[in-house]
C-alpha cells in the first residue's frame, strides 16, 4: 500500500495535480461564488489601509475639543496638539518630527496584524493561501508559520497586552468626550455616542482575542480547581465565537470615530449636542 508520504512525482506537478491523485485537470470544481469572500475581505482591508495610512501621516485635524481621534491617542511626542486633560504624554520628547500617530498605531496595527482572525483574512484574501477551501493555491512552496518571518505571529499575546493599554486610553478619551468644547463636564454630543460605541466594540474585540481566552483560562488543565477563571473563560469564549464580526465592527467603528473628529476639525460638520 502506498503510504501517501512519498515525495512529489517526477512530473513536477504537486498538490491536487500530483500523479497519485485523481486525474482532474481543473484546479477546483466548486460551483459557488467562492471568490466572493476573499475578494470582499481584501477590498475591505484595502480601503481601511489606504484611509488609515493617509490619516496617520496627515498629522493634522485630529483634535477638536473634547474629541481626540483614536489614531492619535495617546499622544507620545511633543509635537502634539495640546489636549486639555487629555493623554498628552511626551515620552518621546521633541526630537520626534513625524506624525505622532505613528508612535501609537504600531500597537493596534501589530495586534490586528497578528490576530488569528486577520491572519486568516489576509492569508486568504491577499496571499491566496488558500483562496478558499478546496481551491488550489498558486504557490509552489509553503511553510506556513513554521519559520521566519511568519513564526513571529506567535508574539500575538504581547500585542494583546499593549492593546489592552491602548483600549484603556481610548476609554479615558471616551470619558473625556462627556465634556463640552470648554471642557466642562456633564455634556454629551453625537461624538460622545460615536466614541462610546467605538470603545465598546474595541473592548469586545480585544477581549474576544484568542490569546486573551488562553490567558484567562484556556491554559488551565483543571477548570474545576479555578471556578472564577473558568467562568471568565466561558464568557471570553462566547465573545470569541464572534471574533470575526467584532474585528470588522471595531475596525469600522474606529475609522468612523477618526473620520468624525476629522470632519469636526476641518469644520465640515458641527457636533450636534444632546445636553
Amino acid at each position: 500500500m502506498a503510504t501517501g508520504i512519498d515525495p512529489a512525482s517526477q512530473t513536477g506537478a504537486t498538490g491536487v495535480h500530483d500523479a497519485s491523485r485523481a486525474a482532474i485537470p481543473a484546479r477546483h470544481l466548486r460551483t459557488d461564488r467562492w471568490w466572493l469572500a476573499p475578494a470582499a475581505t481584501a477590498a475591505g482591508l484595502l480601503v481601511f489601509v489606504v484611509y488609515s495610512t493617509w490619516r496617520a501621516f496627515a498629522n493634522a485635524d485630529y483634535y477638536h475639543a473634547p474629541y481626540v481621534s483614536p489614531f492619535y491617542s495617546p499622544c507620545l511626542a511633543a509635537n502634539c496638539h495640546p489636549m486639555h486633560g487629555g493623554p498628552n504624554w511626551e515620552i518621546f520628547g521633541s526630537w520626534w518630527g513625524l506624525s505622532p500617530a505613528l508612535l501609537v498605531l504600531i500597537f493596534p496595527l501589530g495586534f490586528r496584524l497578528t490576530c488569528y482572525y486577520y491572519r486568516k483574512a489576509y492569508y486568504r484574501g491577499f496571499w491566496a493561501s488558500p483562496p478558499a477551501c478546496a481551491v488550489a493555491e498558486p504557490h509552489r512552496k509553503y511553510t506556513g508559520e513554521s519559520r521566519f518571518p511568519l513564526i513571529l505571529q506567535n508574539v500575538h499575546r504581547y500585542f494583546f497586552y499593549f492593546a489592552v493599554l491602548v483600549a484603556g486610553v481610548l476609554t479615558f478619551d471616551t470619558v473625556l468626550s462627556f465634556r463640552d468644547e470648554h471642557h466642562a463636564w456633564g455634556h454629551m454630543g453625537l461624538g460622545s455616542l460615536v466614541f462610546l460605541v467605538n470603545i465598546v466594540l474595541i473592548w469586545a474585540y480585544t477581549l474576544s482575542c484568542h490569546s486573551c481566552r488562553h490567558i484567562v483560562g484556556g491554559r488551565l488543565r483543571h477548570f474545576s480547581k479555578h471556578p472564577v477563571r473558568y467562568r471568565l473563560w466561558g464568557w471570553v469564549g462566547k465573545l470569541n465565537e464572534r471574533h470575526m464580526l467584532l474585528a470588522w465592527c471595531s475596525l469600522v467603528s474606529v475609522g468612523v470615530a477618526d473620520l468624525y473628529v476629522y470632519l469636526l476639525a476641518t469644520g465640515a460638520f458641527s457636533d450636534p449636542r444632546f445636553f
Partner: protein
Amino acid sequence: MSEQQTGQSGAYQAHFRVWRGDPDDGGLTDFRVEVHEGEVVLDIVHRLQATQAPDLAVRWNCKAGKCGSCSAEINGRPRLLCMTRMSVFDRAETITVTPMRGFPVVRDLVTDVSFNYAKAREIPAFVPPEELAPGEYRMQQEDVSRSQEFRKCIECFLCQDTCHVVRDHEENKSAFAGPRFLMRIAELDMHPLDAASAAGLDRKRTAQDAHGLGYCNITKCCTEVCPEGIKITDNALIPLKERAADRKYDPLVWLGSKIRRRKE
C-alpha cells in the same frame, strides 16, 4: 427543466458527473439517474451501482454520518456523501462527485487514506497516571468537556483532505500531521489526567517540533468542512499554538524554567 420533473412523488431525473478511474488514468463520466424525495447523494451513487455501473467503487458504511467512511467531494467541496441531501441542489444542476483530491486515488471514489493512519501512529498515546488504579479516576465534567468535543471526531478525514498544507503540497506530508492529529494532541494535552509530562513528554513542544503545528496558518478550512461541527481551529489548533507559545515565546515562562533548572 420541466421534462425532468416526472411528478410522481417528487421523483426526477438528475444529471450526475462521477469521476471514474484509477491512479493511471480517469475522468468524469456523465449519468442520468432517478432521484426520489428525501434522498442523499450516497443513495444516488448506490442507484448508479445497482442499475448502471455495478463496479463503481465507493467506500461507505453506516449511512448516518457516524462512521466517516463516505468522504468525497461534491461540486468541489469536501463532504460526506451520506449527509448531503439532494434537496440542497437545484434540480437542473449538474452534480459532480469526485474522490477526495488530497489523497492518492485507488479507484473511482475510493482514495488511499493510509497517510492518516501513519500519522495517528506518530502521536504519543495517552499516558495513564501511575498512582491511580482502574475505577479510581475522578474527573469533573467541565474538565473533560473540552477533550470530549474533539473525541466526537468520526475520522472522516475531510479536514485532512481540505487542508491546503498537504492538499496543495504533497511534500509537506512528512512534516505535518494535519488538523485531525494536531487536534488529537490538543485533546491529550487538555485531558485532566494525562501523565505525559510526568513521563518526560512535552506535548506542546512536540506539536510544534515534530508534528508541524507551525505549518497551520489557521485559515479554518478544517472547521468549515467538519461534518461533526467541531471547532477545530478555535478550540484545538489555536489553543495549542498558544500553549506552544507559552513554552517557547513567553520570556517570563522561559526565565522561570531557566531558574528552576538551575536550582535542580
